[in-house]
């Protein structure tokens, strides 16, 4: 029984799955990067922020199966909320993050309640149009959002009143890493909870879940709201660390990019964001310096091939290869004694 459950569910699916050595690896890498590449802290912090954003998308798309082309909406709302809060209320970063997450959650709750009655193509279109509406809204509500100029010039007060944000972005990097740590374990707990299992059931077969008495609509809204809140926190972090908020954060392109980065890593596995996003952003950083159009060509080809041959992303691909190699070895070992 136990082995069957283990095979059916991806790693970390149930509470009795212990943390293994591999679970420590991303954090070791992140901390090692802090000491080894201390001149790349600003892109490091960007990557960590996008990983948080990716995890939030993974919760909605990978676990609840909500197809969305508009996740940038929540990132952007969070960024604007944190930016506005720091400009007009208080430069304290943690309360700013709470405000960012809270407002994004509110938008997620409202839009989820409205949009999640549809599915498939209509949902893809509606989430996309919602982002476009918010983009236009931010563009025209100049007194609050700064219109096309965005928000800038905000200060971020020292973290906990102790650690001020330095020029090299060291505090920013550790701040983002800390938030990522909290967010990751929160999502891990959510994904392993009974609620997490029920949204996975909805992803697999919504009709059947309805028949066994699951309040499908309500659970989807809750998952969407949680995901929106986390995306809002990521957006808030971005606003506090870069100290600017621009209209790009609400764009269709950002929604598409985060989706691509997550798909590259693997959807519905929690760790997909840890693989796909650093890989994509580091390669982009190098390639865009040479020629952005070459980059698009290779991303395009890679995307087509990945979806065709490895729909689970790089994580699933390596897991398959690993299983195949192990299977072959096991067979060889079994034969040897004879």
């Amino acid at each position: 029984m136990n082995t069957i459950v283990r095979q059916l569910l991806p790693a970390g699916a149930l509470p009795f799955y212990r943390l293994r050595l591999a679970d420590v690896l991303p954090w070791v890498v992140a901390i090692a990067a802090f000491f080894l590449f201390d001149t790349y802290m600003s892109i490091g912090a960007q990557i960590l922020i996008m990983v948080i954003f990716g995890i939030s998308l993974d919760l909605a798309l990978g676990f609840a199966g909500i197809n969305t082309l508009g996740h940038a909406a929540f990132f952007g709302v969070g960024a604007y909320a944190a930016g506005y809060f720091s400009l007009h209320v208080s430069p304290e970063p943690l309360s700013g993050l709470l405000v960012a997450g809270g407002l994004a959650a509110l938008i997620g709750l409202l839009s989820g309640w409205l949009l999640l009655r549809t599915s498939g193509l209509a949902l893809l279109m509606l989430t996309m149009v919602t982002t476009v509406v918010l983009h236009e809204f931010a563009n025209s509500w100049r007194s609050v959002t700064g219109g096309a100029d965005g928000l800038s010039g905000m200060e971020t007060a020292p973290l906990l009143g102790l650690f001020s944000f330095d020029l090299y972005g060291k505090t920013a990097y550790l701040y983002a890493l800390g938030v990522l740590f909290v967010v990751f374990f929160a999502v891990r707990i959510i994904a392993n909870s009974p609620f997490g299992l029920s949204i996975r059931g909805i992803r697999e077969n919504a009709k059947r879940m309805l028949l066994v008495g699951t309040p499908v609509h309500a659970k989807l809204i809750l998952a969407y709201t949680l995901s929106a809140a986390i995306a809002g926190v990521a957006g808030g972090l971005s606003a506090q660390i870069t100290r600017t908020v621009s209209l790009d954060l609400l764009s269709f392109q950002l929604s598409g990019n985060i989706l691509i980065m997550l798909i590259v890593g693997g959807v519905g596995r929690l760790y997909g964001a840890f693989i796909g996003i650093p890989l994509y952003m580091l390669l982009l950083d190098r390639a865009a310096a040479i020629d952005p159009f070459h980059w698009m060509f290779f991303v395009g080809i890679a995307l087509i091939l990945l979806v065709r041959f490895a729909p689970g992303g790089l994580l699933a691909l390596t897991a398959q290869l690993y299983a195949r190699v192990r299977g072959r070895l096991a067979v060889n070992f079994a034969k040897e004694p004879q």
Partner: protein
Amino acid sequence: MFSRFAISLVSLLFDGLAFGMILFLISIGMSITMGVMRVVNLAHCGFAMAGGYLTFMLVTQAQLPFAVAVPLAVVGTMLLGALLERTVYSWIYVQSELGQVLMTIGLTFVMIATANALFGSTIQDIPVPGALRGTFHLGAVGLPVYRLFLIAVSCACAVAIWYVLDRTQVGAKLRAAVDNARMAGCIGMNVKAFFAVTFAIGCGFAGLGGALGADMFPLEPFYALNYLVLVLIVVSVGGLGSIKGTLIAALVLGMIDTLGRYFLPEAGGLVIYLATLVMLLVRPQGLFGRQTT
């Protein structure tokens, strides 16, 4: 005062009409492929771009007259569409909706990079022949001849599509294949070939839209992404697979967009997108789309 307002209103409505008709030409192929083959084809605007660039190449490099270059470009786009339909799209068809979205976004990226490699990243103008330049005066209102020509061509296309689909046997077969592909196959229709031809024709219309509409939709590598949102809105508001819906949605969108830019430059876009949002919430299947489950 009033007459001046009326004149500017008429010319704005005329521009909106031209804009809407081009939008219709580009969108109709996508609406049909999405309605017929259930493929979310985000690369569709890339075919419009291909038509535009082919015309540009034929007119400026091969020195062909405009009247020859445009039909050749349309045929070229159809061939490109047919080629891709037989190759990459056979992978795309079997994917889930999200997989289709990602694969066609990937294809769009490849198209953008290719267009940049071949034609550079600047905006390219397609020179228009002398006979189509100038303005046509109707009373006090001056209408650009080229836009009149655009509207005439697009109307002819709309009528032709409607006639073929609604009044001929080929159209009846296609509609049968849409309603029930398996049943249509059972009575001896080659559904796959039908769909491939339909796909190619849809690409051809997009190519025509791209070639003729280059003055309103400037031709540059990001063409394939820039107008995607607009085209997707037209297609989903009109209802997948509905010609009438696509036409009405394209015209209304073109009008509102043009008038909005003039009268409400601050909130013009917001009106369209909010209206779209509400519309799609009330009728997720679009204005004239059929309810699918």
